[in-house]
């Protein structure tokens, strides 16, 4: 009973903000704000209900683009990180560029990847998502692989363990928390990449196209409904990776809550 109450106490403030936000949105849009600036939440939800089939299939289409880019970009990044950690001179040669590339607004390349991979092909959106995902995952994973405490290496050497043994038993598990924080950022970036990629043209089924087209014809309720779906998919994507993280790293101090 007391724990239930304490739970309520923990969640209470956040729940209150949520309810207040919705009330303010609904009231504000009905009383003061023009519909083309921000439609009332209730009318967005109505649109969502009425056009669910179209919006959801567009959402899934774009989500697949994001997922493809995520898979390609993060696996390439992990392989690269493994190689750079294994052969240090290689790492020293490449890392400054990887870190610099992290600062490039890669999204600016979106119109160009459309040229490279074909405007209608999901591959062009996957490409931009993959490039967006690549650097944060690379930098994080590499940091995890190389930030092993020197005493852990000394200990392994005292057991006559070779480089490969140290890699497998120390560097890889040590890198897991870093890898997952990279992957969580990557889920968000992949969704952004896919949707922005859509904005520059592509299949009629895509979420980005739906948002751009409906906003273009002043159907803001539909645009907002599509944004809601994009948000839901983005959150589910993030939550899925976070769940895998928790399951993989039950040993981690951050898992102590359960």
């Amino acid at each position, binding site marked *: 009973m007391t724990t239930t109450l304490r739970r309520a106490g923990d969640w209470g403030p956040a729940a209150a903000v949520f309810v207040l936000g919705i009330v303010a949105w609904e009231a504000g849009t009905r009383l003061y704000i023009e519909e083309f600036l921000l439609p009332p939440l209730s009318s967005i939800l109505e649109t969502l209900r009425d056009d669910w089939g179209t919006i959801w299939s567009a959402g899934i289409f774009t989500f697949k683009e994001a997922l493809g880019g995520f898979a390609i970009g993060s696996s390439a990044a992990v392989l690269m990180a493994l190689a750079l950690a294994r052969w240090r001179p290689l790492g020293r040669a490449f890392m400054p560029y990887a870190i610099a590339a992290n600062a490039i607004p890669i999204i600016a390349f979106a119109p160009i990847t459309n040229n490279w991979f074909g405007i209608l092909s999901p591959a062009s959106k996957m490409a931009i998502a993959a490039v967006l995902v690549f650097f944060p995952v690379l930098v994080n994973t590499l940091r995890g692989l190389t930030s092993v*405490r020197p005493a*852990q290496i*000394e200990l392994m050497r005292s*057991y*006559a363990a070779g480089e490969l043994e140290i890699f497998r038993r*120390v560097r890889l598990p040590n890198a897991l928390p870093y890898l997952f924080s990279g992957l969580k950022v990557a889920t968000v970036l992949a969704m952004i990449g896919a949707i922005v990629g859509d904005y520059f043209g592509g299949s009629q089924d895509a979420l980005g196209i739906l948002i751009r087209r409906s906003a273009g014809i002043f159907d803001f309720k539909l645009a907002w409904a599509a944004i809601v779906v994009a948000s839901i998919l983005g959150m589910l994507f993030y939550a899925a990776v976070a769940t895998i993280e928790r399951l993989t790293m039950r*040993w981690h*101090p951050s898992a*102590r809550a359960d």
Partner: protein
Amino acid sequence: MNADAAVVSLKGVRKEFDRGGVVALQDIDLDVQAGEFVSLIGPSGCGKSTLLRIVGDLIRPTAGDVVVNGKPAHQARLDRDYGIVFQDAVLFDWRTVEKNIGLPLELTGWSRQRRADRVHELIELVELSGFERNHPWQLSGGMQQRVAIARALSFEPALLLMDEPFGALDEMTRERMNLELLRIWDQTRSTVIFVTHSIAEAVFLSTRVVVMSPRPGRITGVVDVDLPQPRGVETREQPRFAELVRDVRRTLRRGGGFEADEAGEDELIVAEEGL
């Protein structure tokens, strides 16, 4: 002394670190016999931890001979002739207590069943029954260090190297761990080289205390500790204990010019000489 029985034999060991040609150790000659418990004591910078790592072949000496178990230190490391414990327990967060202890056995290729039996024995030895499945962050500092000791003993090495293993623990836990270490040493009869900067700890544990001085790191004296075995809580109250603590402190002062307070706490003040 019979040189054949020496588990560790150091002759003319010298270590210079590349930068600025700092001489960390010079003219180190030391034999450690089987079954001895030898402490290396000295102020920071006297090279005691470096010396321990040279014995373990984790650092190469610039010059000199290091023989462990009758072979070059490098070969001894490859043969897993010693176990090592650091100041920080150096446990792997992703492994449970039993898996941390069993790690060296995994590397040695022991079967799962044999490993489980051995780990079970060790957990009883270090009195951690009930914590087998816990992760390191769920343990106190003292318990973590017991896991590290069990791990170092897992493959029954002839030699145990300990680098200030209890340096990070509070005084009460440290004294309890000292007693436990003596009990374990008594049961396993391994040879121990123990680095510390606590005079009381060195005298209480050791059969011999090797006193070192900094700039350059060298051995300035050896105090034989003739306190009766087995030792216990009352050992610290014997007049002989106080005498030996005083002997070690005088040797320290003569060699390097620093002081330590009565409790044997590590308040080592470097005198004008180096400034």
